């Protein structure tokens, strides 16, 4: 999939797939710009630490690492409000961290500890923090698309001005629930941004084996909604696009389908020999590291220095180390509690 970039950094507006999108990133305060970088680093190092835990056999179960896709979660969530809702999928750590989750509780959950977000009941694929608007990761591909739409309905019925971000992958776009949910959101004009992270593969299946179309965002036609394809590795583009559409959504202008092109650097899950793709393809995409791209942008815009970036990364590394320590030193859940939380 070819990435057409027609934007011009000096301009205040982008033109993407026929939509004119303002450069709101430009006007953002410095703190937030740096905060976003920090989040990206946290995600990256969280995943690297997780990978270590996997290698050392400390994770019972599987994990799906988000490395390489950080710009999508961070750019999207920072373009929305703190109390907006998100739903996530199996590859959910990045969304969760970007949404502001406590790293300690996340890591503890991965190690199956009683201090984890889910008290050890959910693990990687089910971390949620409903209080903060994170309606949960999901082990079922497409499984959270109805839930996201339902949160949109709440927003609409309570008129609470919230919007919903529904993260899902290219693979999920072929599940029936994708179709049903977006259609209903459109009929009811719900404030939901369906954010498809197209990393070109659903497990081992490349897009061309699962779709006979080039752009998933073209499916907007089926529902009469807005939609477009963007460079998901470019945080600024993600931020601006989502900023634009979250305002539209909040104004009652229905759901949107945004396709963010990206790539996962690691295997699909714990065990993946990656026979379905070439090393070259991976390294081509690694050149388009979202963190490097964004750092470069910040440096170029003179918002930050290389040294400062190093500091930020080091602090992120520290945060993760602390989280890992917290997780390791936490106790396992008491088996006696097993049937707690089944019912309210």
């Amino acid at each position: 999939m070819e990435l057409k970039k027609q934007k011009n950094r000096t301009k205040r507006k982008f033109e993407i797939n026929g939509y004119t999108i303002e450069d709101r990133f430009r006007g953002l305060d410095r703190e937030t710009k740096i905060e976003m970088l920090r989040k990206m680093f946290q995600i990256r190092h969280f995943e690297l630490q997780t990978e270590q835990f996997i290698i050392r056999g400390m994770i019972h179960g599987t994990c799906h690492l988000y490395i390489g896709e950080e710009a999508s979660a961070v750019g999207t969530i920072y373009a929305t409000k703190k109390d907006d809702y998100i739903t996530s999928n199996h590859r959910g750590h990045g969304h969760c961290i970007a949404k502001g989750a406590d790293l300690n509780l996340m890591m503890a959950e991965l190690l199956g500890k009683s201090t984890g977000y889910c008290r050890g009941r959910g693990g990687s694929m089910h971390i949620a923090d409903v209080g903060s608007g994170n309606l949960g990761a999901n082990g079922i591909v497409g499984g959270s698309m109805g839930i996201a739409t339902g949160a949109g309905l709440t927003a609409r019925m309570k008129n609470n001005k919230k919007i919903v971000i529904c993260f899902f992958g290219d693979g999920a776009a072929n599940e029936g629930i994708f179709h049903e949910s977006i259609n209903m959101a459109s009929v009811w004009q719900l404030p939901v941004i369906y954010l498809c992270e197209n990393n070109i593969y659903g497990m081992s299946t490349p897009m061309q084996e699962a779709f006979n179309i080039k752009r998933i965002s073209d499916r907007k036609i089926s529902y009469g909604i807005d939609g477009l394809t963007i460079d998901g590795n470019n945080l600024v583009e993600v931020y601006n696009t989502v900023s634009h559409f979250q305002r539209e959504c909040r104004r009652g202008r229905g759901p949107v389908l945004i396709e963010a092109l990206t790539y996962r650097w690691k295997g699909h899950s714990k065990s993946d020999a990656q026979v379905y793709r070439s090393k070259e393809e991976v390294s081509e995409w690694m050149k388009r590291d979202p963190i490097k791209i964004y750092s470069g942008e910040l440096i170029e815009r003179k918002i930050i220095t290389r040294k400062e970036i190093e500091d930020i990364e080091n602090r992120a590394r520290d945060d993760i180390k602390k989280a890992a320590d917290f997780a390791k030193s936490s106790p396992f859940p008491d088996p006696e509690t097993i049937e707690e939380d089944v019912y309210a």
Partner: protein
Amino acid sequence: MENKRQITYLEAIREAMQQMMRKDENIYLIGEDIAEYGGAFGVTAGMVDEFGKERIRNTPISEAALIGIASGSAMTGMRPIAEIMFSDFMTIAMDQIANQAAKARYMFGGKASVPMVIRTPGGGGTGAAGQHSQSLEALVAHIPGLKVVMPSCPYDAKGLLVSAINDDNPVIFIEHKLLYKNKRYVQYVPEEVYGISLGKGDIKRKGKNLTIAATSFMVQKSLEAAEEIKNEKGIDCEIIDIRTLRPLDLDIILTSLEKTGKLMCVEEAPVFGGFMGEVAAQVAEYGFDLLDSPILRVAGRNCPVPYSLVLENEMIPGVERIKEGIVDLFEKI
């Protein structure tokens, strides 16, 4: 007694929803053709006039998303009552029911709740054949996180639905088509709002020779059979309406068995793998010493519900089959 109003099962259900919706604006209805049309069986007829189309919300024909949307709204503060037009269509939404709504709370470590009711008509007898006549309660009753309710009469229907709506868990509320408008089963139902605890069975007929545990419409059929058999053979059956399959009230059955020593289970679903297997298994474990004869199940035949009336009558247990079961049980001793 005669002065008290007698209403149908359908009216009782509708009234429960109306009264609860007046009290709590977070409650809304979502389903196919429930607004102007009033639902396939007319249960929600007229409600759109009072509550409007936002709260009596018609959906496209999309059962999976319908349930997903209800769950998502429940997790964020609403209290949806979703209607699945025929319980057979729960299969289309089964992931959303069993993997999402049922499990969200547990998997999230107790930090979410999904207060929703899924109302759906089950059962046969309407000549609608295999895909519109099933009794699929066993499929949902097996899923931890769900509660499952099957009222057999107007009084219970109202009280149980009120409790289901008040419950903070997903509750599958399976109604029976043949009860909806049946004048024969009208009953006094108080006008005020009242709840019936989920998890409590009910003795619908006192008796001393034999315990019958039944669900939904089969409670009514069993009552009929019990009257006839009393007259014909003098056998006096105690009839327990299971009412809530999950949580199951085992105690009420065991208490009855202390008296009768004999258990017959009656349900409409095909016997193989049906819910009454659970009842029988629990009794065979916890009430074994109370039993003086085999546990008999009278249930649907092991086939899809057929279309033709003569076949459908053969598939679904009727008064005659229940009576034969009772007699069998006495002859087997």
